[in-house]
C-alpha cells in the first residue's frame, strides 16, 4: 500500500543543524548515528534540576535506560528504543521542566570525551553569550565573566 510522502512530515524528530566538533568520524557517519540514536542531549536545565525530575518527565515517552547529569557537564537521556526517544523529541522537547523550557536534540551516544556541553567552556552554548544574571545558571554568562 502506498503512503504519500507529503503526509509523513515528522519535523520534531528530524536531526538539527548541530554537529559535534569532537565527534570522531566524518559528517556522514555522525548523521547516520544520529538517525539511529536512542540518546538525547538535554539542554537549558537549571542547575537545581534533579535526576529524579528528569527521570519522571522523560519516562512519559518511554522507559528510560540511563540519565547522565552533571554540573557544567553534558546532560543526557538514553532510552531502550528509538521509538521512545522519538516521542521525547515530539512531546518533551520544548516543554517545561522545573519551570524552564528544555530542549532535546539527538546525540551520537555515550563515548569518552563527550562529557562536556556544547559551549566552548564546556557548559551550555547559551551560557557563553548570556548577558543577564541568572542564578540558576551559574550567574553571568561566560563571556561576561571573562
Amino acid at each position, binding site marked *: 500500500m502506498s503512503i504519500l510522502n507529503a503526509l509523513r512530515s515528522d519535523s*520534531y524528530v528530524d536531526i538539527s543543524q548541530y554537529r559535534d566538533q569532537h565527534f570522531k568520524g566524518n559528517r556522514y557517519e555522525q548523521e547516520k548515528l544520529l538517525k539511529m540514536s536512542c540518546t538525547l542531549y538535554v539542554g537549558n536545565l537549571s542547575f537545581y534540576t534533579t535526576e529524579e525530575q528528569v*527521570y519522571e518527565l522523560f519516562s512519559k515517552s518511554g522507559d528510560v535506560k540511563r540519565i547522565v547529569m552533571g554540573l557544567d557537564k553534558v546532560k543526557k537521556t538514553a532510552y531502550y528504543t528509538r521509538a521512545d526517544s522519538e*516521542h521525547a523529541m*515530539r*512531546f518533551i522537547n520544548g516543554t517545561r521542566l522545573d519551570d524552564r523550557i528544555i530542549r532535546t536534540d539527538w546525540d551520537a551516544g555515550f563515548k569518552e570525551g563527550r562529557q562536556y556541553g556544547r559551549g566552548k567552556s564546556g557548559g551550555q552554548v547559551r551560557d557563553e553569550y548570556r548577558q543577564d544574571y541568572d542564578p540558576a545558571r551559574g550567574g553571568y554568562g561566560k563571556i561576561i565573566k571573562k
Partner: protein
Amino acid sequence: MSRRRHSDENDGGQPHKRRRTSEPIEIEDRLESLICRVGEKSTSSLESNLEGLAGVLEADLPNYKNKILRILCTVARLLPEKLTVYSTLVGLLNARNYNFGGEFVESMIRQLKETLKLNLYNEALYLVRFLSDLVNCHVIAAPSMVAMFENFVSVVQEEDGPQVRCDWYVYAVLSSLPWVGKELYEKKDVEMERILNQIESYLKRRQKIHVPMLQVWTAEKPHPQEEYLDCLFAQVQKMKKDRWQERHILRPYIAFDSVLCEALQHNLPPFTPPPHSEDAVYPMPKVVFRMFDYTDAPEGPVMPGSHSVERFVIEENLHYIIKSHWRERKTCAAQLLSYPGKNKIPLNYHIVEVIFGELFQLPQPPHIDVMYTTLLIELCKLQPGSLPQVLAQATEMMYTRLDTMNTTCIDRFLNWFSHHLSNFQFRWSWDDWSDCLTQDLDKPKPKFVREVLEKSMRLSYHQRIVDIVPANFSALIPTNPIFIYKYMDESSSSLPGYAVTIAISNAIINRSSNDEILTILKDVPNPNQEDDDDEGDSFNPLKIDVFLQTLLHMAAKSFSHSFSALAKFHEVLKILTDSDEGKLHILRVVYEAWRNHPQMISVLIDKMIRTQIVDCAAVANWIFSPDMAHDFTRFYVWEILHSTVRKMNKHVQKIQKELETAKEKLEKQHSRRKDSGDEEEDKNSDEEDGPLEEQIERLQEKVESAQSEQKNLFLVIFQRFIMMLTEHLVRCETGGVDFNTPWYKNCIERLQQIFLMHHQTIQQYMVTLENLLFTAELDHHILTVYRQFCALQM
C-alpha cells in the same frame, strides 16, 4: 533559480512548459503535492482551486494516469477529513473523462478488498464513505451503492463470525449516511428503509456485555456514555426525522452541480464481503465519550445535541485531524483550530471533548498519553484568551464526577493534570476543591488530590508542593521523600544485626571484595532458624536486611548512586536472593527503606528486574502480599505492576523477534544456495546450516521458556485478584455489609485494567485462564469482568 521553482497549486496553466524539461520523478512528487495540498494556503476559493487542479490533472492523464489514480486512492484512504474535497475532484475528472472515473471506481474496489484482507478496517471505512460520497458527485449510481449496503447488512444474517464483524459492516453503512443518506433515500427509499429496519433489529438483539468495561463514567447523568453503534443509530434516526437534512458537512460539489449532473455515472460492481477468517482482527467496540452539552458553552454558537448528526461529523473530523497530525503538535493544534465551519460551533469545547475522549479511551488511547498533554499546551498557546478557561471548566467537571469515573481513567486524568500544571507553575484554585478535605482519605476526591500532589512533587520538589497548596491541605501533601534507615544510630543498637551493619559499611568504604562481604554477613543470625545451619546458605531475611539497608543508605543520594550500588554488588545480591523468599524479602526491604519515596522504589525495582535480582512474578506476589495491603490502592503500586508486566511482554517479543530473524536468515541461505545451483549442495548445506539451526533451536527454547514465564505471571496476578476479591465479597456477605466500598471499586477496576492494558497478550492464554481460574464457580462479580473482556472480540 526562481524560474524553475514550481508555482502554487492554483496556477493551472504553467506546468505544461516545465514538464517537458523536468524528470518524471519530480513530476510525480509534484502531482502528489498538488493533490494533497489542494485548497491549502490559497487566496482563491476552494472551488476555483479544485477547478484548476481538475484541469491540470485532466491534461496529465495521458502520461500519468496510473500515478494519479494511485494518489487519489491513497488520499481517499488516508485523508478522511478532506473526503468531500477529493470526492468533488474525482467528480470533476469523471465529468471530463468518463473512462477515468470508471477506472478510479475499480481501483477503489480493489483497494477496499485489500484493506479488508489486511485488517485495516479504519481505512476500509474511509473508502466506503468515499464511495458513498461519489454518489453525491454523480460518479456512482445510487442504486448500486444501495446494493453494496444491502450486501454489507446481510452479514448480520451469517451463522459464523464474531459479533464485531457484523458490527463493522453495520457501522460502515450507518456512518456513510450523514454524507449520502439524503440522496439514497430520494432514489431508493424502499430499499433503504429495509436496510435500516434490518440494522435496527440487529442492534436490538446484539449483546452489549462489553459496555460497562469501556465506559469512562458509570453514571447515566449528566451525559450517558453510549455504546457507539447505539449512538450512531440514534443520530441517523434523528437525521431521518429531519428529512435527511445535514447542515454541517462542507460539500464543494454543490457549487459544481450543473457540471456534475451532466456526467455519466458508473455502477459499482457487486461487492460480496469477504468471508470471516481466523486471522481477521476486527475493531473493538467503543463507547462514545461525552462531557459537554449546550448548557456548558453558554455564550456563542450552540453545541449540537448528542444525537445530532452534526455532532457525529464534527467529532469524526476532529479525530481525523489528530490522526493525521499527532506527530507535529503545532500543526495539529493549528489544524484543529482552523476547522472549517468553526464559527457555527463552540469549537474549543468540541476540541477539548474529543481530546479527553481519546485520552480516556478504553482499552487504550489511540496515541501515546503525553501527546495529548503537549497538544493541549499548544492549543492554550494559540488561544490564550479562551482555551485555558474551557480546560479549567473540564477539569473542574471531571473532579466533581470522580466518584463514578473508571479507575484507569482517573490514573490518566491525574497524570495529565499534574504534568499540565508543571508547565504552568502549578497554578490552580485549590481552594475550590477544599470539599475533599472533609472526606475520608480513601474516597475518590481526596485520593485524587493526594495523587496529583505526589505526581507534581516528582516533577518538582517537596517544598514546592507545600508552597503551592493552602495550609489546610496539609493532610494531602506527600511525605518528604527521605530514606528511612533502620540502623541509624546507637538508639537502634539493640536491633539484631546492628553491629554487622557497621562492619558492612566499613567494608564497602574500604572496597572489600564480595567474598569478604559475604563472610561478614555470615555473622548475621537467622531469625528463621532454631538449629544451627552450618552452611548459612538458606534464606536469611536478616542478612538481606542488614546488607541492603546499609547499601541503600550509603547510596541514598540519587538514583545514579543507587543504581551504581546495585551494579557493584550485583553478585552479592544475587546470592542473597537465590530463592523465591529471598526475592520477596528484598522487595520488602526496599519498600521499608524507601516508603517515603515511591518513585525511588519504582526505579529500583525496574533495575532489579532488568539485572535479574528479582523476577516479575516476585514483584507481583509482593504487591499482593499482606505487607502491601495498606498501599494497595495507591497509584505508584499499579505503575510498578504495569511496568513489570510490560517488561515481561517486551522481553518475550524481543526473543520472538530474534527467532524470526534467525529463521529468515536460514531461509535466505537456502534460497541463495538453490539459486546458485551449487552442485555440492548437499555437502555444504550441513556445514552452512548447522550453526544457524543450532541457534534457532536455542532461541526456540528461549521463546518457550519466556512465554511460560509470561503465562505464569498473568496466572499469579489473576489468582491473587480472585483470592482478594472473593475474600472481600464473602466477608461482606456474611457481615451483611455493602461490598461496594471504595477499596472494592478500586480493586475490581484494577482487575479490569489488567485485562484492558494487556489484552493482546492475554488473548493467547484464554484457554488456560478459563479452565484454571475463571470458572463458573467464581463469584459472579468477578466472572462478569472476565465475560466483559471476552466480549470485546466476540
